[in-house]
């Protein structure tokens, strides 16, 4: 049982990252009815922006030293006598990085938000009124554009970024067996849930949230009621790209930064459809389910089976509920 809960916890940690990626896809779909195949590559840009502001910029000569390595006086006392790889050393190492992590996240969110706006205005706006199929293919075309641009701007070098939180194992016992988390994963998990939760609150309680929901419900009626629908579209892309910046920072710190990062988005697409394209909650559940089942499969049967598990799960769920777990059925009229 302790073992079982260990792998379930691992799965939840992974699931939260899936959920964060899926968040962008859902928010774009909800307001514009476009499924963004290039979300993974938008996230990749977020990761590269994080790298630019957290690694490249602090190393520049004109930046003050404390940005690259922050050594407040109390830190020296704290880390005295800390062993390599101990909890203390991990926290001390993280404190050194705090300024540039914050700089990196702020920079990444701003730049990626602008990127989202740019994509919406230049590529998606001219396609308004076309079939959603054409728009989806347009996002597929974007994959090449984004991949090529990233390679031109940052070269294809593999890079590393500082993790968002200190990384040490948190051990405790559950059902009489030792289990553990990595603290960095917990930080990622909390961050993902916070973003997810705050976005749902925004949609429910603010004026712009109501505008987005109204547009999702019925575009032309929303237009007639005086809602600025193009602005809603822009804001959907901005939401997707800014949450994508966080997802990118997390993914890059977990997996390293390279042009392959973008491919992650395609595997998350299946999760989004499993949850239901227009349901944040459904997608959250689906992401957790896939994470958990993947990790349990890895435990019991190893990597080959684990790789296919999400797809089997998606197929079963879609056959059972043709609009995903919590997706709304489309009302069809003849």
């Amino acid at each position, binding site marked *: 049982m302790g073992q079982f809960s260990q792998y379930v916890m*691992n799965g939840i940690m992974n699931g939260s990252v899936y959920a964060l990626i899926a968040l962008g896809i859902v928010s774009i779909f909800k307001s514009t009815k476009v499924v963004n195949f290039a979300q993974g590559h938008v996230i990749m840009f977020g990761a590269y922006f994080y790298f630019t502001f957290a690694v490249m910029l602090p190393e520049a000569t004109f930046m003050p030293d404390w940005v690259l390595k922050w050594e407040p006086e109390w830190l020296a006392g704290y880390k005295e006598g800390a062993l390599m790889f101990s909890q203390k050393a991990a926290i001390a*190492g993280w404190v050194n990085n705090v300024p540039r992590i914050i700089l990196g996240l702020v920079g990444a969110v701003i730049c990626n938000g602008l990127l989202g706006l740019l994509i919406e205005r230049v590529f998606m706006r001219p396609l308004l009124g076309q079939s959603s199929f054409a728009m989806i293919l347009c996002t597929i075309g974007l994959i090449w554009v984004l991949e090529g641009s990233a390679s031109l701007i940052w070269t294809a070098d*593999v890079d590393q970024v500082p993790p968002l939180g200190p990384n040490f194992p948190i051990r405790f016992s559950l059902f009489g067996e030792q289990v*553990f988390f990595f603290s960095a994963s917990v930080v990622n998990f909390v961050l993902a849930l916070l973003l997810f939760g705050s976005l749902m609150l925004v949609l429910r309680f603010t004026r712009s949230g109501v505008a987005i929901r109204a547009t999702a419900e019925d575009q032309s009626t929303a237009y007639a009621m005086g809602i600025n629908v193009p602005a809603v579209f822009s804001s959907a892309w901005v939401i997707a790209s800014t949450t994508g910046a966080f997802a990118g920072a997390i993914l890059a710190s977990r997996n*390293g930064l390279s042009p392959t990062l973008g*491919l992650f988005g395609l595997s998350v697409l299946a999760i989004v459809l499993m949850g239901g394209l227009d349901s944040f909650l459904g997608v959250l559940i689906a992401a957790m389910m896939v994470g958990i089942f993947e990790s349990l499969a890895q435990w019991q049967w190893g990597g080959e089976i*684990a790789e296919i598990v999400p797809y089997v799960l998606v197929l079963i769920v879609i056959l059972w509920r043709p609009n995903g777990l919590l997706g709304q059925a489309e009302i069809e009229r003849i």
Partner: protein
Amino acid sequence: MAIKRRTLLQAGAAFAAAIAAPSIVRAETKVWRVGASLPMTGPFATAGQLVAPAFAEFETVVNDNGGIGGIPIKIEVEDSGYIPKNALANFQRSLAGGDLHYYFGDSTGFMELVGPTLKGDQAVMMGSTSFASVLANPKERPYQYMAGPTYEDQFEILLRDVAAKGGKTVAFIYSDTEFGRDPIAHGRKIAGELGLKVVLEEVTKPAGADIESHVTKLAQANPDYALLQGYVTGVWPQLIGAARAFGLTTQFMGTFWAMEKVVADKVTDQAGPFLDGYQGVMPYRYFYDQENAPYYRELAAQKKAANPDFPGYVVTWELEGRLNLELWKKSMEMTLEANKQITADNLMASFRSIKDWDSGGFFGSPVTIKDHKIGQGRVYRYSADTKLFTPSSDWLTT
């Protein structure tokens, strides 16, 4: 302007001449043509883009020194995106462009795809980035070779080293790709022979692996050594980092593609000294180990002359590409010396006859080709303090 039939005809003739001209010119100026497919885009763009400049430099240096047998070389590099089908199209296009004297492939998949077509006037001597065991097969792949030991050999070197260092249990961790699986069956056999117990075989995704679950399983099996296979830039640093943070005492070992100092250094800079003590097999000397490597010293001087900011390190991936080219050059020179025609068959015959060749420092001992490969390698150990891989074994041959 009214277009007369005459002007139209003249224009057409000029156009046709312009199209046909390149082939005429090509036939007149004799060069040794070398083609290469490199992954400049796609998942392995990192490696492709780092290696590419070496091909241009090699061309310049050889031509500045009078070419091969007095004839200059011309290297034409194309992007494959790491898709075998695209690389095949590149290869066919190169072939259509005139005599081709050497080709450098970018993946095991391409080498297998192109292998059966290499016959008759389509035969070309061919090296590649791959150390896949199936490619070291003179009988079935008479024109393909590799500039080092196969993955199976590399795994065997590691296992022998583990046994020599007193390890009792090992884990195999590999990506779910052909590259990852290549040496595993052979590894099991050798581990059995050496009396090592394989306590865990863990298959991971090739990128974006579920690190937590892998570390959990590894912690349960708790092997003395864990051998990694099938990774290039990702997964291995994260896996080792997580295992260290967790407090595992398992020693990690890798093969050629996961032994790059540049990647290890970046991990050390950004995440901490997690890779300290990481070991692995490397067929070549690292570039900073120049004492017994005249070739490396020369190369460093060349690079310094061309670019004053040259940082003084050349990635191992580039060394592999260069060694491939050097082996071809050596085969060319041997064939020319023997006054034989430059054909793929003659080149490969010369290549096979390379014996006790002084590689200029790539390898510790003189190079002798056996089964289209070079069965040498050494185990290195990474230190996060010095940021260097230093040898922890003698040169081993298989």
